């Protein structure tokens, strides 16, 4: 342990960039990024489930607005959405005096709103696709048992749809992690913001960005690991026998 400590001090003393101070910046950035991404995914998934069910509805006044929503949010860059939410709201006269300003004054919540709306749109489409692909036989069997539509949705369609959506959703999580890098343009000190800071302060683009790239890689690997485990468990019945 002492050896490790000495090794670490020596490692830090050899360079001017990665001091305790800048590492602290990176650490705070990591915390902010993880918070932001985790929260937006969590809220996003809760929004996406009812939206995905509604997206497949036969009633046009439910189906089309949801379609329009997913179309708009999947059809425009996240950066533009973030700018609109962060700088756009300011142009509503007098918003500073309303209760909304508590939310919009910080940079964090506008970013969270933009990210949530974005990921909810993608997740809605992923779930919708999975629901649509439910095997005909399963639905017929459920109907033969006399299940009502809500019950059938809850017991038969959604559980199997979630399982089928899992690999695609895992991708969406990783995409969202990477997309969160745009948060730094609205003054949020996320991982990329910290890297920008170190870059600007020491004029050292390589060290600053390679270090942050490594952190993103580690995060991505952990996400992949979790989803690999989940898939192994939940999709066990789809694997070929005897492997």
């Amino acid at each position, binding site marked *: 342990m002492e050896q490790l400590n000495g090794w670490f001090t020596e490692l830090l003393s050899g360079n001017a960039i990665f001091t305790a101070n800048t590492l602290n910046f990176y650490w705070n950035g990591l915390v902010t990024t993880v918070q932001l991404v985790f929260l937006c995914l969590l809220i996003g998934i809760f929004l996406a489930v009812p939206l995905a069910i509604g997206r497949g509805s036969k009633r046009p006044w439910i189906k089309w607005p949801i379609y329009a929503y997913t179309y708009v949010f999947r059809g425009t860059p996240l950066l533009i959405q973030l700018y609109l939410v962060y700088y756009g709201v300011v142009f509503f006269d007098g918003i500073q005096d309303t209760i909304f300003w508590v939310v919009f004054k910080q940079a964090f919540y506008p970013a969270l709103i933009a990210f949530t709306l974005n990921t909810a749109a993608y997740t809605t489409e992923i779930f919708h696709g999975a629901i649509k692909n439910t095997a005909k036989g399963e639905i017929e069997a459920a109907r033969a048992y006399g299940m009502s539509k809500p019950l059938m949705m809850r017991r038969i369609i959604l559980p199997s749809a979630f399982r089928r959506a899992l690999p695609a959703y895992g991708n969406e999580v990783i995409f969202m992690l990477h997309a969160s890098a745009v948060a730094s343009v609205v003054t949020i000190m996320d991982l990329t913001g910290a890297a920008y800071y170190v870059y600007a*302060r020491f004029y050292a683009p390589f060290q600053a960005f390679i270090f942050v790239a490594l952190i993103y890689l580690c995060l991505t690997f952990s996400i992949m690991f979790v989803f690999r485990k989940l898939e192994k468990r939940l999709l066990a019945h789809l694997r070929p026998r005897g492997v």
Partner: protein
Amino acid sequence: MKKLLTSSLLGAALIAGVAQAQDTEHLRFGVDVPYEPMEYRTPDGDLTGFDIDLGNALCDQINAECEWVVQAWDGIIPGLLARKYDAIMSSMTINDERRQTVLFSDPYIKPPSAFFIPADSSIDTVYPESLRGKTIGVQRGTLQDNYVTDMYGDDAKISRYTTADDLVLDMDAGRVDIAFLDFPVGKSTLLDSKDGSYKTVGGMISEPEKYFGEGFGIAFRPRDKDLAERFDKALATLKENGTYDEIYDKYFKTQQ
């Protein structure tokens, strides 16, 4: 005898001629416009600005007649070396890289930075205690960023923007309590264009050198050491007799 007379007359004329030439020495300054308020054109097209006024005052001081030559920035040092003009006075920051090709006078100004606040803000000093809990806006990676990070990082929240425009937008929106900017930038984007809704607080800040650099200098050809020394002396005189302050106030004083 006649020959001697002629040659002595000739010699006298020559000396007189040289003496006369020294009386009305003619100097040319290279300058790149516009860079408000350091050098720019009035609506009539005349050159004006801090550099122009100070340069003319310096020329008066050393009994020279000055002419300004407008030259684009990327060719401004080659132009000096090619003798298109004798000195550069165009907001040129003194640094070691340029020192290898040109000779600098003493710094005549450090570009000041200043804190800007909304006119109705309650902030009246810029001590770290009085900015505790406030949001300070800066442009990311600028010397202003480094300065506030070190001086106020523990007390205030620092918001770093990619461009000054984004910062101004958020200042208008009320997300930023106080901005720390290059004074000329803040003057044109906040003081002049939003007349009356912003003001400065805490005066001009251009120290310490660690953050704000060595300042702007007049650049000469390396062999013109005498000329550079005369300008240094003239600058010292102008600073003593108050002319310098007069010119400074004309361009950098704001109504508090």
